[in-house]
Every structure is written in structure tokens, then in C-alpha cells.
């Protein structure tokens, strides 16, 4: 593919397949997530959405396919084929950098390619305070500042400054997620909605280029999901972070996403703006669980 074809894409997934033994969870999936946009990945239960997430974030090694991410300007895409030919996992150039995520182990996807993620069933550090959770997220930056612990052990001034900077950043995200009052409380004590926000704040503390959210609105009430929409819009607008999200809550998807991809049985069945996707017969059929030609019949039956 030429550089122009990728243009404003930040994440480029091509021919991604993931097989578990005989089960094909994702089959030849290709899509793009554009820079500064909110891309939603939707589909019925078991469609393979979380599997795609796990492939992108390095938790699974895809059976096939290329997952490329760029930093910097779109010109960086020019190196894609050269990078694919080589054995390396990423390449940094004058225009930015290019990463082949399928070649990287999970922690490097976050550390080097700066892709952050949250989990469907919240994973925080319940026995650590909210602030500590956000400090752990800045591990790599602080590790460097502490001279891999050696300088930090002697309380060197530059490490203390770095730590204060990290606390400031944590404080900023606590403010944004309305968790500042609970900063010194254990994360396990937070109510469910606050835990969801904490996970997002923690992911943002890693300074991501791409933020992957796995069902961020699950279990939230109407007011909380409206607040979540606000937060995600603000992240996109103020930090330029591109967002990729899996979501079942259609009000969230329709309201905030710029671009929707629909999966069913591991295959892409629709790709477009929220409006286009909503009117797509295939999508309706997938959600109702019927064949395409029976859609009208069923719609009439359920009164759509």
C-alpha cells in the first residue's frame, strides 16, 4: 500500500487472523483507526472484539496479519514495507516512528509504541491507593529518572523532581476524572463507576498515542456514561489521543464515535460513520441474529 492510502491513519490493521486451535476468533480483519478520532469496535457477544484488542496490545500473538502504528507525521508510513521486510519491531525516522505491534511483547506495546488499554473486567491494584495506581502507570519514566533504582536509592535530587512531576501529572488526571478527593484511598474501596474512571486515568498516565478502551461504559448508569462521553471527548480534543473502543452501549457509540467498525463471527461486516452503520442491514441482522433476507420479516415482527 502506498503512503497516501494510510494518510491520516494512526493504527493500521491488515489481514488480522487469530485462531485458537480449530476456532477462528478473528478472520482476515482489516481496518484503520484515524488520528485524533474515536473509533468504535462493536459487534454481538463473541464477535471477537476483545481478541482484536488483545492482538493490538500484544497480549495475544496473532496467527496472521500486520498491525502497524505510527507516531509523528503521516509521512512515517512510507517506511512500512521496509520495516516489514526487516526483522526489527520498530523504526524511528525524521518524520516519526513506525511500530509493528504483532512483533512486540505486551509491555513493549505500552512502553515503546505507547498504546494504553483498559480491561473489560476492571484490573486495578486494589490494595494500593488511587495515587499509587497512577504512579505505577508512570513506571518506565520514573525508572529511568531513578537511574534504575541505583540513584533513587540515594535520594538524588533529579529523581525527586521527576517524582514530583509524576505526582503532578497524576493529580491532573485525578482532577479530570473527578477522583482527586479519593486520591489517598485504596483503589479497591472505590465504587464501580469510579474504578472505571481510575482505569482510564491510569491508562492516560502512560502518555498514550492510542488509547484502547474495552467496554468503558459497562455497568455505568446514564449520568455516569454521559460523564464518560465528556471525558473521552476532552481526551481527544485536548490531548490529541486517538481512541479505539469496544462498546455495547449504543448511545455512547453513536454519540461520541467518529468511525464505527462492526464485527460478527470474527469478520468485519460494516465500516463507516455511526449513521451509515446504524442503517446497514447486515448490522441489524447480526444484532438480531438472523440471516440478511429475513431481516424485514423480523423487523416487522418486533415492530421496528
Amino acid at each position, binding site marked *: 500500500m502506498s503512503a497516501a492510502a494510510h494518510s491520516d491513519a494512526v493504527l493500521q490493521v491488515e489481514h488480522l487472523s487469530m485462531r485458537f486451535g480449530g476456532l477462528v476468533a478473528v478472520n482476515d480483519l482489516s481496518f484503520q483507526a484515524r488520528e485524533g478520532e474515536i473509533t468504535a469496535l462493536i459487534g454481538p457477544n463473541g464477535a471477537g472484539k476483545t481478541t482484536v484488542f488483545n492482538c493490538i496490545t500484544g497480549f495475544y500473538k496473532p496467527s496472521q496479519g500486520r498491525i502497524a502504528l505510527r507516531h509523528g507525521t503521516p509521512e512515517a508510513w512510507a517506511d512500512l514495507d521496509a520495516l516489514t521486510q526487516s526483522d526489527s519491531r520498530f523504526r524511528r525516522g525524521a518524520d516519526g516512528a513506525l511500530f509493528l505491534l504483532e512483533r512486540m511483547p505486551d509491555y513493549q506495546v505500552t512502553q515503546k509504541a505507547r498504546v494504553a488499554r483498559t480491561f473489560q473486567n476492571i484490573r486495578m491494584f486494589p490494595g494500593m491507593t488511587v495515587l499509587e495506581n497512577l504512579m505505577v502507570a508512570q513506571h518506565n519514566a520514573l525508572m529511568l529518572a531513578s537511574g534504575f*533504582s541505583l540513584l533513587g536509592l540515594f535520594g538524588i535530587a533529579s529523581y525527586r523532581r521527576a517524582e514530583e512531576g509524576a505526582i503532578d501529572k497524576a493529580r491532573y488526571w485525578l482532577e479530570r476524572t473527578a477522583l482527586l478527593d479519593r486520591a489517598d484511598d485504596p483503589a479497591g474501596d472505590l465504587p464501580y463507576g469510579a474504578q472505571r474512571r481510575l482505569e482510564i486515568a491510569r491508562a492516560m498516565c502512560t502518555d498514550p498515542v492510542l488509547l484502547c478502551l474495552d467496554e468503558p461504559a459497562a455497568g455505568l448508569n446514564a449520568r455516569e456514561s454521559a460523564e464518560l462521553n465528556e471525558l473521552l471527548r476532552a481526551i481527544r480534543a485536548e490531548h490529541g489521543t486517538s481512541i479505539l473502543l469496544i462498546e455495547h452501549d449504543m448511545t455512547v457509540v453513536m454519540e461520541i464515535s467518529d468511525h464505527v467498525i462492526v464485527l460478527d463471527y470474527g469478520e468485519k461486516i460494516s465500516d463507516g460513520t455511526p449513521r451509515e452503520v446504524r442503517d446497514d442491514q447486515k448490522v441489524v441482522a447480526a444484532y438480531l441474529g438472523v440471516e440478511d433476507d429475513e431481516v424485514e420479516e423480523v423487523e416487522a415482527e418486533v415492530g421496528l
Partner: protein
Amino acid sequence: MATEASTDAAPAPTEPSAVARSLKDAVLAGLLALGLFLPLIGFQTVTNMRNELVLETRWPLLATIVATIIAGRFVYTLFVYPWLAARAVRPASLRYRLDTKTDEKRITWKTWATLLAAGFVAAYPAMVMVIGGGQGALKWIDNFGIQILIYVMLGWGLNIVVGLAGLLDLGYVAFYAVGAYSYALLAKTFGFSFWLLLPLAGILASFWGLLLGFPVLRLRGDYLAIVTLAFGEIIRMVLINWVPVTNGYAGISGIPRPTFFGLPFNASDEGFAAYFGLEFSPIHRTIFLYYVILALALLTAYVTVRLRRLPVGRAWEALREDEIACRSLGINTTNTKLTAFAIGAMFGGFAGAFFAARQGFISPESFTFMESAIIVAIVVLGGMGSQIGVAIAAVVMIGGTEIMRDLDFLKAIFGSGFDPTQYRMLLFGLAMVLIMIWRPRGLIATRSPSVFLKTRKEVSGSLVREGHG
């Protein structure tokens, strides 16, 4: 209270009184105890003068035990149980009053306790000298002071691996052994000094820590525990069987003793006593060793406290809480686990080198699985991750064992054949069971956060995870 409850519930006149019920219960318990202890305690086989095995009976001891059980059960069912039941139904607000005490008040209390403890530990040899004098002091400093501090240090070292990183290591004694043999062999072969070999022993032990770390990286929970246990045994087996180097079961004797920065502790003219114009006494070395191990233990504590506030320490704790979340935040969990193993092992190695220098003789006997179990027990009883809890647990467990050697008055009660040290493991187990009942998360179950914005609030132990390997 139980009487009231029962008469309220069943006003029938046939209801037996609380005393009668307790009595019946106690007699039943006594019968059960009699059945159980008759073969265990009532009979004893001894070898007589003609080298024959004869059966002897121990009726008085059996009777004492059964009577104690009956009395205890009676008191328990009549008084303790109703009291506990009443306590359980009291409103929660009375038991757990909202903590209105200011943080500062508690902090001053803590500061005073810390200062007091530090003063006591620092002045301990002098205090014992004044009270016991001469020979008595030697025993108290060596058996209590040094012995306890070795275990405090081992507990703190293992605490990094088990308490912070949440990796259950049942073979910690292996690193203790590596440290001890490193010192013994290098000091005997090359004549290097204690102060040179101390860091070297630490480095060698942490190298073995890394070596253990690699194969167990993927293991979790029970599997990790089994492999670390096996690792400890492998090291011991090597020490036993590699006779040309380690001298096998016979062990290594004549290990050079540490000097006071070049001054040996002996009666010679170049010795420590002669140099300072003192009369020679073996207690000088003991006191010196006491302060060496105290400094080593404090070093362990200091490094651990500092590391907890550094990114690596936070990563250890995060690893204990949720490994997958760690990886999603860009933390290299492999390196994090390996550093935990290596640093924990390093302190084990320091303690081992000290142990060899103090004893002057080491053999594989000192590095059995039992030692690992004791160290793990200290960490678990103390409260995983808590420095003070571990120190208290070490004092109680090791000090308790040592004290049992001195309880001669018990012989007056149980007969001259009674050896209190034999009941050590029994009490050890009993302490474990009691702790598990009352403080399932250890003596000090709360976790102190490593960083805070406004107030440092202790994290309740029920939220802190134990790690899964």
C-alpha cells in the same frame, strides 16, 4: 447471658442449667482427650539397663492434661463462649468506632514506640551486661540478640520476595546457605577478610537468586512454591554430596572469625582487648557481632523502605496486586520478578556470610527446609509486607524458642524427664493456628501507602492481595 438466652427461648422447667450443660460438655471433652492421649502420652517405651524396650506408663502426666482440658473446656463453655457470643451481636459502631483521633496523635505514639525500640536494641548488650554480667550476658546476647536479629534480617529479606512481590518462595534458606558457604570457602581458601567477602557473598547469593528466578518466571502460586522448595533442597543436596569442596555432612570448621577492622578478638598482644587496654573476654567479639548483625538488619530495612518508594518497589507491589494490569502499563514483569528474587537473595546471602563468621562452623544441617519454613512463617505471622510485623514475629518465634530452653521450673511440675524444647514445634503450630484465627492477615495487616497527596491513610489488609506467583 447464656442462661438468660436459654431461659427466654425455652422456658420449660426440664432445661438443664448452664453449669450442668457446661459440666457435661467438659466431661465429654475430657473423655475425648483421654481416648486421644492415652496411647500418645499415657504410654511410653523406654530402653532399660539391659537394652530392652519396656513399656512405661505416665498416668500423672495424662491425668494433668485431661484435667486441664476438662477445666479449660468448662470455663470456655460457661464464660468465654457466652461472652464472645454477646460481643458478636453488639452493634458494629461500638466495636469499630469511627476513628476520630487525629493522625498526628497516632504518629507521635508511633514515633515514641520506634524511638523506644531503637534505644532498647542499641543498648541491649550494655543492659544485659549490667543485669546478667559475664557468662550470663554472653548467652543473652548470643542466643537472643544475635539469633533473633539473624532471623529478623532473613525475614526482612524474604519479605521483599513474598510480602512485596507476592512470590511465595519456600527455598529461601538456599541463599542463606550460598552466603554461608561462599564466606566459609573463600575465607578459608584465599584468606579474604569478612568485610570483603560480605558483599561478595551477597552478590553470589543474588546470582543464585537470578538463576532460580529464570525457570520459575512463568509459574504461579502452588507451582512456584513447589519449585522454590525443590531449589532449596537441591542446594542442600549439592552441599551434602559435593564432598571435595563442601566436605559433605561433616561441614566446614575453622572458618576465620571476623576481626575488629583488622584487630582479632583473641588474647594475643595484637588483639582487640590488648589494643584498647581491656582484659580479654570472649564477650567483646559477641558484642561486636551483635552490632554487625544489627547494622546489617537495619541496612536491609532501610533499603527495603527506600525501594518501596522507588518505581521498582511500586512495581513489585503492583505485580502482587495484578500482573496483567502491570504488563498493560508497560512494566517488564520479567525484570521486576528477577530483581525481587535477586535483592531478596542478596540479603539472605549477607545473613549467611554473617552466620558462618559467627559460628565458625557450618554444615548442611543448618540449612534444612525447616529453616525456610520458619522464615516464611515469620513473614506470614508478621503480616506480609510489614517490616515491624516481621520483626515482632521473629522476636516472638525465635525468642520464644530460646526461652523454652530456660524454663527449668516446668520440670518441677511435669517431672524431671520433661524437656520444654521438645514442645517447641507444638507451640509453633499453636501460635500459627491462633494467628490464623484472630489475625488472618498477620500481626500487622495494614499496608502503608508509598506516596500520598494529603494524608497517609493505611490500606486495610482485606484489600491487599497476597499475590499469586
